[in-house]
Structures are given as structure tokens and as C-alpha cells.
């Protein structure tokens, strides 16, 4: 005798079918809303700003006249910031990750550091701005410079870089390390010659993704005193600077319609830079993975 009566089963089967469909529609709705919003944003920005994006917009300095306003100084500022932040956070982040994964073992200091890194990743970016202002701008006397901005952004993305580098290092199979040690390699030789080369593509991906987060950051740069009107290109690491998101923020706050267009155009440039960096991350990762 069946445990479930056939009539009950048929009734339930209908209901289950409907539940299944409803769940499917719900999921479809979720992806539609998520993508739809993004699409609306892109179309809105595109319609408003696309006509504004041209070489003179990219190569001009900010101006009081919306038609003449450009983003050269902001774009260069962002590029320099990201290069500084990328290099600093790469060196510190990979070093910290190697320490935690390869040297620290399970000592108390490492455990505390680990917990704090996870917490730091969640600290609001404006807090890093205040830290940067106090340490780099004032204590170290770097002033409101590119270097101070780059260092601040480096601190901001450091926790994420450490965590992603740790994951990449952890993904290197222990058998590779054992193989190295068994041939008489020291710990340093094993890390440098075997572990890091294999973890490198993963580390690089983490760095590039974090750096693309840094390029969109506004709050910490405002706190450390980035300028909104910079009619000159940065001429050195101690130069004062602006950055794309700050320029965009500045333009959106203005009443003239022309500046709204300029802001939209600035967003397009920012998005292109971001997508370009993400694409670079994917290409580099694929290439490095194929090589090994």
C-alpha cells in the first residue's frame, strides 16, 4: 500500500508545480530588476553625456564654462592615484599575506591580525580619509598631495588585497611546497620560486579589482583635501590633485544643465576606465593561467 494516497498525490503535484513556477518567476524578476536598473542608469548617463565625450573634454582643464570644461587634470589625478595605491598596496598586501600564510602558523599575533584584517575590510572609507589626513597629510608632512591620496587609498584597499592574496596563496597545493622542501629548498626559496609564481595570477586579480574600487572612491579624498578645481596637470608626487569622482561630484552640484552633461560624460569616462581595468584583470589571469 502506498504511503500517500493517489488523490492526495495528484492534488499536491499540482501545487508543487505552481510553487516551482512561482519561484522561477521570482528569480527571473530579481535578475531583471537588477540588470534593468543598471541598464536604465547606463542609458540615462549615455543619453545625457555621450555627446559630451570627445577629445577636447578629455584633454581640457576644468572651466567656469560648461562647454569648455574638461577632465584632464582629474583623469590624470585618478591614474596617478591608482598607480601609487596599486604599487603600495601590492607590496604591503602580498608581504602581509605571505607572512600570515607561510610564516605565522597559528600563533596568537596571527590570529588577532587575521580578525582585524577582516574587520578593517568593513570600515567605511571616510574613516580611512580621516586616518590619511592625520598621518600622511599632517604627521608625515606630505600635504594635500597625490602621494598622500595614493597612500590613503592604498590603506583602504589593503585589507581586501591581503585577504585575496591569502586565498591565492592558500590555493597552492601543499604537495608543491613539500616537493620544494624535499629537494633541499629553504622556506624562502620555496615561497619565492614555487608558491608565489603559482599564486601570482590570483593575487593580481585581487589587486586589480581592489584598485578599480579605489578609483571610484570619493569620500576619503575629499577628507584629505583633494581639489575640485585644478586647472593644471599633476607635475609630481607632491602635487595637489583632483580625481574623477570628485570632479563628477563637483559638477553634479552645479545648477547649469551644461555641467550636468559634463558630469554624465565624466561618469562615462570613469566607467570606461573601470571596465578597462576589469578586462585587464581577466586577460592577465587567463594568460598567466595558460602559461603554467
Amino acid at each position, binding site marked *: 500500500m502506498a504511503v500517500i494516497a493517489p488523490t492526495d498525490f495528484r492534488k499536491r503535484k499540482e501545487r508543487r508545480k505552481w510553487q516551482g513556477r512561482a519561484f522561477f518567476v521570482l528569480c527571473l524578476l530579481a535578475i531583471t530588476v537588477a540588470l534593468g536598473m543598471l541598464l536604465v542608469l547606463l542609458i540615462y548617463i549615455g543619453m545625457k553625456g555621450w555627446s559630451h565625450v570627445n577629445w577636447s573634454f578629455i584633454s581640457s582643464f576644468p572651466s567656469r564654462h560648461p562647454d569648455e570644461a574638461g577632465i584632464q587634470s582629474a583623469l590624470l589625478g585618478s591614474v596617478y592615484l591608482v598607480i601609487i595605491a596599486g604599487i603600495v598596496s601590492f607590496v604591503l598586501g602580498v608581504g602581509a599575506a605571505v607572512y600570515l600564510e607561510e610564516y605565522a*602558523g597559528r600563533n596568537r599575533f596571527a590570529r588577532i591580525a587575521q580578525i582585524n584584517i577582516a574587520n578593517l575590510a568593513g570600515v567605511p572609507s571616510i574613516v580611512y580619509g580621516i586616518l590619511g589626513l592625520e598621518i600622511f597629510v599632517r604627521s608625515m608632512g606630505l600635504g594635500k598631495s597625490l602621494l598622500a591620496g595614493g597612500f590613503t587609498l592604498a590603506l583602504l584597499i589593503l585589507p581586501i588585497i591581503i585577504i585575496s592574496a591569502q586565498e591565492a596563496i592558500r590555493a597552492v597545493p601543499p604537495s608543491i*611546497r613539500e*616537493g*620544494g622542501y*624535499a*629537494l633541499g629548498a629553504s622556506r624562502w*626559496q620555496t615561497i619565492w*620560486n614555487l608558491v608565489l609564481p603559482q599564486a601570482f595570477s590570483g593575487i593580481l586579480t585581487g589587486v586589480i579589482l581592489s584598485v578599480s574600487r579605489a578609483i571610484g572612491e570619493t569620500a576619503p579624498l575629499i577628507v584629505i583635501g583633494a581639489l575640485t578645481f585644478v586647472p593644471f596637470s599633476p607635475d609630481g608626487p607632491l602635487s595637489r590633485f583632483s580625481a574623477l569622482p570628485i570632479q563628477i561630484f563637483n559638477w553634479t552640484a552645479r545648477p547649469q544643465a551644461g555641467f550636468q552633461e559634463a558630469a554624465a560624460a565624466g561618469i562615462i569616462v570613469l566607467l570606461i576606465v573601470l571596465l578597462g581595468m576589469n578586462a585587464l584583470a581577466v586577460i592577465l589571469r587567463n594568460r598567466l593561467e595558460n602559461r*603554467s
Partner: protein
Amino acid sequence: MLQADPILQTKDLSVYYGANRVVTEVSLDVLRNRITAIIGPSGTGKSTLLRCFNRMNDLIPTFHLSGEVLFEGNNLYEPTVDATDIRYQIGMVFQRPNPFPKSIFDNVAFGPRINGYNGNLADLVEWSLQRAAIWDEVKDRLKSSALSLSGGQQQRLCIARTLAVEPTVILMDEPCSSLDPIATLAIEELMRELSEEYSIVIVTHNMQQAARVSNYTAFLMAEGDRVGQLVEFGESRQIFTNPQDERTEAYITGRFG
């Protein structure tokens, strides 16, 4: 009777991971230019014992031992001994082939490079690959990735990599357990050839393999809290045809394990 001239010896060796004893009071002589097999059921400390000979256990934080491990008469665990000095004299081949994700050439050249080899690297690589009976299969593609080789080829590459640092002892931890029977025979043949110049210690689950290739066999087992005790050690022929201990006989005739 065992002949004299042991290259490796353990004396009352007990190994612990934390509070767990995994090898119990083992005294064993590994003879020069012979193949010594370590057999026994799973979880009886065979691999742990093997890893004492090149101090690979050092990598495990909770590891400690009592007793002695002698290499050519010197205690490997003296505080003055540097583990990295030991490891290129006592090479190791692992259970699963673990080639580095580098080219075939760079795999073999890795050991000599890190140990500061000054001679002709290409010659050494060729010699090692020939010694490991894989030269003919890879000589035309030394630059291609070691990961493109088959499992059996990878394992012979790992043996070549070990030979390239010119060790005197080769430890093998179930080197054939992930290989098919043909690749297994190739490795066994290779071991026989290598034993003319090297002393080999092999851990194996495969008793036929131990009987086929080894000159001496050590049988480990666990009894109560005496995990990893040496039950019987002697010439393989005698162990497999006329074991002195009834537990050895029970194991090799397949009554347990």
C-alpha cells in the same frame, strides 16, 4: 642475518603528533644500496616513519620524537643539523606525482639551481632524465609544461628531479599508488636499476610490490596504544615465505589489513 653497513638507522624511535604516538619504539637498519620496503595496514605510521628520514615531519607544528635517527652514523635531529642540508642528500618521491607547474627542464633543474649548482645544467638535466628512464619520451619537449605529461611520466619526472640533486638515499612514499599497472612496472624496474647506486626506502600498501622489488622488508602494525610498532624486519624473501611472527604471516596472507 643483516649485513653491516647501514646508511640509515632508527634507535628506539617514537614519533608523536601532539599527545598521539604514531610510531612506537622502532629500531631499524636501512642498508646501503638496497631497497627496503615498509609495509603494514593503513594508519600504522609507515609514512611518518619514512618522513623522519628527511625531516619532512618538521613541517608539522605538533610533531616531536624520542629516540634517534642516524644518517651515516650522525643523528639527524641534533640541534646543529640543518634540515635543508639533509633533504638534498636524502631525496623523496611522493604518493601523488607533484611536478611543479613549470617546464620539464625547469622541474629537473630546480633542485640544482636552488642548491647552487655551478656545472652544466643541461647535461645534468639530461643525465637525470636518462637515469629516470624518461629522457627518450621528453627530450623533444623539454620546454613544455610538466603538467602535460601522463601520471606515470610525471612520477618518473619527479624521480629525475630527485636524482638531479645527487642524493645518496631516495625515500618513496607509495610512489605507484596513483599509477596504472604498466606505469607501476616501469617505476619498479627503475627502482631496481637505481638501487645499484642509491639506497631506497619505499612505503607501499602493495605486498606484491614489496615482494617484487625490495631486498628487505619491515612490517609495522598497531596494537592497542602501540601504534606503528615494528613487528618484524628481515630479508624480503624470508618475510614473505617464512615469516617468524604469526602477525606478519596473518597480514601477508591477507587475513587482516
